[in-house]
């Protein structure tokens, strides 16, 4: 009888031992250590963490999902491709607060900025910006209107300067799915990457 009890005890002990081993392996060697699960997107105002669910006003606001359902989808920002949604006539934002017929004057001028390293060159498209913005929004507060006159880098963009004044706040942010929207012009064929290591003194 005692042996029987003992063996049951040992069985329980060994099972729990195995469990604790598995558990400890799990806690230090999770498959994804740094990858965060996708944050939920387009939550209704009462659940978005900035609107007070106690406020009656919160429940009068439109849930983003309802507004976005007919728009062109994207992976970034609001999960909406705003440029495509305008071009596909899903939305028609007014160019004047009270006059719905006023239209922006679109300027077709691409500025190509050569990029250090392997990434494709950056194409700054005036057409898609003048569709939404006035010249004075950028010139001369953010950019001197002269090709090559402005210092630009990814570091500055991530600090909220240069293109990062808008991109990262309201316009699409820097993300794996958006690199190619800016880095749109493949490097000329045969252009070789410069190595910083000297082959011979």
């Amino acid at each position, binding site marked *: 009888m005692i042996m029987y009890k003992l063996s049951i005890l040992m069985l329980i002990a060994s099972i729990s031992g195995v469990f604790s081993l598995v558990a400890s392996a799990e806690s230090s060697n999770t498959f994804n250590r740094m990858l965060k699960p996708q944050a939920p997107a387009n939550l209704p105002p009462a659940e*978005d*963490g900035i609107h*007070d669910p106690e406020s009656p006003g919160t429940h009068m606001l439109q849930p983003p999902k309802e507004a976005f359902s007919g728009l062109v989808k994207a992976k970034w920002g*609001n999960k909406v491709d705003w440029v495509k949604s305008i071009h596909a006539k899903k939305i028609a934002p*007014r160019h004047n607060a009270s006059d719905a017929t006023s239209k*922006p004057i679109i300027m077709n001028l691409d500025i190509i900025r050569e990029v250090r390293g392997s990434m494709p060159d950056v194409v700054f498209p005036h057409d898609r910006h003048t569709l*939404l*913005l006035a010249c004075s929004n950028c010139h001369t507060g953010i950019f001197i209107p002269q090709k090559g006159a402005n210092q630009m880098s990814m570091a500055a963009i991530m600090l909220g300067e240069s293109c990062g004044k808008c991109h*990262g706040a309201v316009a699409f942010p820097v993300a794996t799915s958006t690199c190619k929207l800016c880095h749109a012009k493949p490097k000329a064929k045969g252009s070789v990457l410069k190595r910083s290591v000297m082959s011979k003194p």
Partner: protein
Amino acid sequence: MVIKQQILGLGVILVALFTMVMPMKAYAEYGDIVMNNYADAAEMRPAVFPHWFHRIRFNCSVCHADLGFKFGAGKNEITMAKIIEGEFCGACHNGEIAWSIENCDVCHSGIAGMPTQVKGDPLRVSNIATPK
């Protein structure tokens, strides 16, 4: 009695540790602006401005060029006195272009105590709100 207090104390420490480790849960819509330069001090909830809702209806230039909104959360130092004079939000929320300002709660719907900030890309350094 002493043990009870110790357990309570431990509980408080654990909760505090847990909330420190837990990331801030905020899934606000990209581009939402929280404005709280003056609201908290006046015991009003902070105002929340949804870019996504307005950009469906207006180009950026309407606000940022025609109406003179500067780029930068809190930089325009908006007050109710300016709004009722027809500046900033008051240029449209006047009962003609959009509903008028007696609907206090629709703008003042933010959670009290939140600092002025833009809910943009969390990796953009300037988006990390610093309470004043």
